[in-house]
């Protein structure tokens, strides 16, 4: 099963209006080539689930600039004035979620859990519309799983089978999202033979990865 694909062909698998998780934190660890292909192919009406929308011209910010996004589920948009402008103008719906809660909701979807109870947000605006449960005398919000049609994963290496590893803070939401979407497309910095990533270093096992983007070749 050959999972290697060009960024252009990978992006073609994604429909207008799709719900897409995109890894990265302020652009660090985001799958930049896939994002650029979605912009180039003029994808529209997307729902994006991500930590943030980075800055104009950077990472997910490029999708915002291109008005490809109808709804953004994120933890923070303070660094992107264009996201805020579109939100205030009513062109973009933004759901703000506490960061640890976003991580757990994505994980819950990927791990087959019906939800998790978190103390974060109890008694605040973040509790609106949510069930508050008391467990052993403490109050928690019931946070539901969050899944997507597609996950776009930035990673350090992919082996030919699709095993992935990550580098430093570029890991962030990527491995969580790789478990929570119907179609998982990874964009590695480098592709390596099977066995090069040792078993203990594999963070995302290959069975979770449907496709990975081939590298640009620089061999002489």
């Amino acid at each position, binding site marked *: 099963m050959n999972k290697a694909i060009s960024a252009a062909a990978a992006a073609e698998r994604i429909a207008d209006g799709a719900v897409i998780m995109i890894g990265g*934190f302020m652009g660090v660890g985001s799958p930049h080539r896939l994002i650029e292909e979605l912009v180039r192919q003029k994808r529209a009406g997307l729902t994006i689930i991500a930590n943030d929308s980075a800055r104009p011209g950077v990472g997910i910010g490029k999708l915002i600039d291109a008005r490809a996004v109808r709804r953004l589920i994120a933890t923070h948009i303070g660094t992107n004035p264009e996201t805020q402008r579109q939100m205030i103008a009513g062109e973009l719906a933004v759901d703000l979620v506490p*960061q*640890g809660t976003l*991580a757990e909701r994505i994980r819950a979807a990927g791990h087959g859990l019906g939800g998790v109870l978190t103390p974060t947000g109890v008694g605040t*605006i973040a509790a609106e519309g949510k069930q508050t449960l008391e467990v052993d005398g403490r109050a928690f919000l019931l946070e539901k799983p969050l899944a997507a049609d597609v996950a776009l994963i930035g990673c350090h290496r992919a082996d030919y089978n699709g095993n992935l590893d990550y580098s430093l*803070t570029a890991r962030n939401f990527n491995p969580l999202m790789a478990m929570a979407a119907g179609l998982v497309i990874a964009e590695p910095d480098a592709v390596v033979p099977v066995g090069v990533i040792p078993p203990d270093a594999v963070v995302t096992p290959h069975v979770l990865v449907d496709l990975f983007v081939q590298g640009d070749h620089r061999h002489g």
Partner: protein
Amino acid sequence: MDDKTIIARRVAREMKSGQLVNLGIGLPTTVARYLPTGIEVFFQSENGIIGMAPVPAEGLENDSLSDAGGSPIGAVAGAAAFDSCTSFGLIRGGHLDVTVLGGLQVDEQGRLANWMVPGRMVPGMGGAMDLVSGARRVIVAMTHTAKGEAKILPRCTLPLTSVRRVDLLVTELAVIEPTAQGLLLRETAPGVSVDQVLAATAARLIVPDQVGVMALAA
């Protein structure tokens, strides 16, 4: 010394060796510069690392290594990288000793509002709600007033970050400890009187017989 430096230098004195510390973006980040000699703490950045350090020199930045604001950082020997669930597991699970956060308002119950001004500024809560709910010790580092308006209020007018009572509030005028009984004035800044603090504070302050003078880290 400007107000923010006073605050950062006072907060720095709260750190104890071996602690795991998360510093918010902005003013709180500057606390790292003023750690007293001999105090070694580990800095967590919620985007997924323990052992954050400054980049040692220009040109040594790494595209895969940044702080929660997206700025390049370095790492100490023995740093650890992890995903966002683990990062917030550390925070929510009580493994983070101290978080230092900026503030827009703090109320008489010691509750913090720091993530939005409805209709005007909606950056999102990022990791703030988890940090305030989960850290063992929450220190708010903020200016005492904003454009002459009190920020320490009987009740926050802005949306709360958490209903949890924060542990310490450090401003350029005072150190205040929120307690079950109310806001306890612990220290005033050098040259600042108790009356000056009271005048700049809309919330009721409990003023004990002894109010100390803020000692600042060098």
